[in-house]
């Protein structure tokens, strides 16, 4: 039996969908807002847990964030992760996807050898879906996004099914490599109270800027961000309603014509 060494990237996000943005910095306001693990990351962690069960491997979770982000690592212990790291420093504040991916790559670089990194598809607060692929680029490892299914896992490769919308691609990756997984790849388990008792007090290891190898401050936080948020707003939604009160066959015909006109079919 081979043992897969897996790293899972997770992020703490606001627990509600109504988040406030600082109008001057364009950064999420996190103070006083309940937080939770990014729901998409639960699928990444569940994927890792299934692989761990299959291969008797181990799982390390990592996150970048303020000190309170430690709680998502603790939650990962309850769900079954073996160890976890928080990359936290004031210098990391205000990171966009590029700076986040770079920070993660620096932190992961300190963890020694690994076989696989699993990320969620995207986050519910940023929604960019870019951190996973950018992290793979910084680490110089292959990656596949939109993974819907793990079809095979052996000592020297992992075969995955990539969801391309209208079609699938079956792809084979060597180790080390990175996957971002789709929602519903597996049903995420719920945290267990027994494990909560067992893992209470398990230490979350913290890396700060000074622990990293690259000390070029221009690559971290707001300084290292290639993008700046000007404004965040929910997209406009439109609710046009048409009511047809005619015999069912007539209405059915009309519905068919409408969805055909709009190119839904």
């Amino acid at each position, binding site marked *: 039996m081979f043992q897969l060494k897996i790293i899972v990237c997770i992020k703490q996000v606001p*627990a509600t969908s109504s988040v406030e943005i600082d109008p001057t910095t364009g950064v999420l306001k996190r103070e006083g807002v*309940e937080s*939770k*693990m990014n*729901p998409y990351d*639960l699928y990444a962690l569940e994927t890792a847990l299934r692989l761990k069960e299959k291969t008797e491997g181990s799982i390390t979770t990592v996150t970048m964030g303020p000190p309170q982000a430690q709680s998502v690592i603790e939650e990962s212990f309850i769900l079954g992760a073996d160890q976890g790291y928080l990359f936290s420093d004031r210098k990391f504040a205000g990171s966009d996807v590029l700076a986040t991916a770079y920070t993660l790559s620096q932190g992961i670089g300190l963890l020694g050898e690994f076989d696989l990194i699993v990320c969620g598809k995207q986050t519910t607060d940023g929604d960019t879906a870019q951190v996973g692929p950018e992290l793979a680029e910084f680490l110089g490892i292959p990656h596949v996004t939109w993974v819907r299914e793990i079809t095979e896992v052996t000592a020297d490769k992992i075969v995955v099914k990539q969801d391309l919308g209208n079609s699938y691609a079956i792809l084979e990756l060597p180790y080390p490599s990175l996957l971002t997984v789709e929602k519903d790849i597996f*049903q*995420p*388990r*719920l*945290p*267990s*109270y*027994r494990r*909560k008792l067992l893992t209470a007090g398990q230490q979350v290891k913290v890396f700060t800027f000074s622990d990293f190898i690259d000390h070029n401050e221009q690559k971290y936080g707001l300084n290292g961000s290639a993008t700046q948020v000007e404004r965040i707003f929910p997209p406009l939604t439109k609710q046009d309603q048409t009511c047809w009160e005619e015999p069912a066959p007539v209405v059915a015909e009309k519905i068919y014509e409408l969805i055909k006109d709009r190119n839904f079919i």
Partner: protein
Amino acid sequence: MPYKKITTDDLEFLKKITAPDRIYTGREINDDFTHDEMTEYGKFSPEVVVEALTNHEISSLMRYAYEHNIPVTPRGSGTGLCGGAVALYGGILLSVAKMNKILEIDEDNLTVTVEPGVLLMELAKAVAEKELFYPPDPGEKTATIGGNVMTNAGGMRAVKYGVTRDYVRGMEVVLPDGEMLAIGGKVAKNSSGYSVKDLFIGSEGTLGIVTKLVLKLLPLPKKTISLLAPFPTLNDCIDTVPVLFKSKLIPTAVEFMEKEVIAAAEEYLGKAFPDKSADSYLLLTFDGNATAEVEKASDRAAGVLLQAGAIDVLIADTEERLETIWTARGAFLEAIKSSTSQMDECDVVAPLNRVGEYIKYVKQLEAQEQIRIESFGHAGDGNIHIYLCKDALSDEDWQVKRDTIMQALYEKAVAFGGQVSGEHGIGHAKRAYLAESIGNRGMELNKAIKKAFDPKLILNPGKVCY
């Protein structure tokens, strides 16, 4: 009962007081209007369906029906489970489904004023937008609030918050003779004479037609945590409920469910349930305004559950996690329905400390009668939903077994100090069981009340006690 049949003159009158496009007769009447959720209790065609929009329309209609001795059956969404909103004697089926406006959310008095056709899910959503909370939470979210009040619907949160009755402050009704009456109001207390309001609640549309409701609201709890506790056997699961209450915990909900029902819900929804390791589950919810307080309560409950023999306790503390469990729970009835050819249901309520014994009795009946019986329900308030499934039984066998088992189930509930219906009502399907359980004097009192409101027995005849 010799009721007058509908004539063209009657139809002309109905068109005049409402509108021609809100009157349906003959083939225009949708089949849905001939039954509720339980088609097993028969189909009954009204002679005319009228969709009302105002209390004045209803008042004119009732005055006319009263004078001419025409039976009137009021109806909301038709999601009832005992044939309460079907026109047993033909006549007029009066739909209030289009009276569906939320008239006012009063943040000073913490009340909401609604028309009876507002759907439960719309009400919950509208008040939640103002961080307010209408606690009653029956599984059927597409039911109308009028129907909920008329059956005194209960739901999942009854353990902590009570039932629909506890949230009705006032109402406007049209009496069978067409007179309009306002009862109660926005007041929180009321000791002014007999509580006529409480007679209307749970009266299943037999005493009057509700045209407006004033409901009490609470501040919306900010944090909710559910605990899903797997148990090796159903007995272990049910026997834990009294232990929970002895520990002085105050959960919002305590539900029990078995793996067969969960599997049916998974299939029905096409969605996986987060755990499949056990035979039976208890599902608890805690809510409140302070996260730390809710977490403390749920942790204490988790400890009690483990000590009582739970295999583990799984924690649902986010919107997504709560949804995976509660969506399944909400689909149980429909899932069982779609898993069999026909079913019959029983909604008894027993004292909390007899629930375990009662469920064991149901299991015994299932084995003895060789029929599939699924059950789930509100273990925390003693209200159990039991479903007899016909599956491959012949019509004859089904009839015999169903009658024997139903009789036995109701007898046992009464013997345990329980009641015929916890929240679904009596309708026409459970009248005989009600009569048996409350006895002659009880039925006489019920009939006297009915007659005081409706001496000509034209409003929803054939239901509850007449």
